[in-house]
């Protein structure tokens, strides 16, 4: 139980930080708590565009001190959850 709780706490910390980036830097017009983890980031959902994508990646690289290669971002940056998966994998 403790291992799972620790995993969830770390994941929530990453999701919260990403939500803050989305609201403050990318000006997503939603309160942070209303950004559903499985909502699509691009097209529908949060409706981010390619410029937002660049800003999101640069901000995440800085916040989590990771390198996020373009080819991985293209595949994984589809929802907040899948983007968090990428960050966790790159930090491992």
């Amino acid at each position, binding site marked *: *139980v403790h291992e*799972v709780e620790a995993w969830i706490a770390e994941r*929530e910390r990453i999701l919260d930080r990403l939500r803050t980036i989305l609201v403050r830097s990318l000006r997503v017009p939603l309160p942070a708590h209303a950004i*559903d*983890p*499985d909502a699509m980031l691009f097209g529908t959902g949060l409706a981010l565009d390619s410029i937002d994508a660049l800003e999101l990646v640069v901000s995440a690289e800085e916040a989590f001190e990771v390198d996020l290669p373009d080819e991985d971002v293209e*595949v994984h940056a589809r929802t907040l959850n899948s983007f968090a*998966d990428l960050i966790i994998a790159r930090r491992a």
Partner: protein
Amino acid sequence: VTLESEHRALRSSAAVTVLRDVALVRISDWDRADAIIASSLAVRDGQIRQGLIADEAERVIADLYVGNDDGEVIVYGEGLPAELGAPEPLVCVAINGPFAWELLSRIEGADAAAFPYLSFYRPREGSIYFRAGKTGEFGYDLFVPHGEAEGLAARALEVGRDLEVERASVETLQLASLENGFFTLAREGRRGLTPFELQLQWRLSSKKRAFTMGTRRITYFSSEEAIRAGDAVCFHGETIGEVLVAERSPILERYVGIALLDLRWAHSGIAAFATERGVSIRTESAPLVNNLSTFLKPGRDAFARRDEIAFPGWKRGREREAS
């Protein structure tokens, strides 16, 4: 034709489905539409956005797109209440798949499929074509007069024969939407859940009615073994939720589903939960599949040269399995 072959066509070519439960309504009174729909109506002429309608108890009752049609509100989707107005006498023929754009260009001409995502145009008087979809692939919802729907579907199959296009059932579309993490009103939408529980808060306008947060949230999962909807989800002897939906994904070769979990445990990347019958599940992030559509470019690529597309396959990486 089986669900499996329909599904493969949808994921690798294009599939044609006549959607008789999808209605289209036109409303000239913006204030009335604004009062009924919980989502923002701030959308440019010729464009649409996803929205919803919830009842007094905050339960989602309609899954819709709302658009601006030259000053009128245009709404299409499922579960539209009568108070929105009478539906237009149109039927939706949906074309979904990585090569749906190639199929539509064969039906309507080379430039016909090039209109932007979440927009619409009129190919001729009486018909209206939307670019949308809930499968993660290229998608077009083609509204045509009642008497023309079957003819359009038949023509799509005929001109798409060498594209290996198939007619697909509504169930096939629903399976694809499940794999991609899209909401389906006729499935999880029938459980009386709120936008918070369904992860649909992003569709709500923060300037309208305030919705409450909840204590449960849907979470996607996969499993190597068969899972039944209705099974309890357990962790260390405690019930932490319930399986709402479970289907076998032919392309992932495992079961995928949606569980409604207590908020404390409603996170992806956990492989420690099991159903009451002892079947292990792994919670997953949406989408659960890679979509060929995101790896190709209309115009540059073509179905005939599909082997040249650098596609890593439908299965997503395992890096999310952290526990």
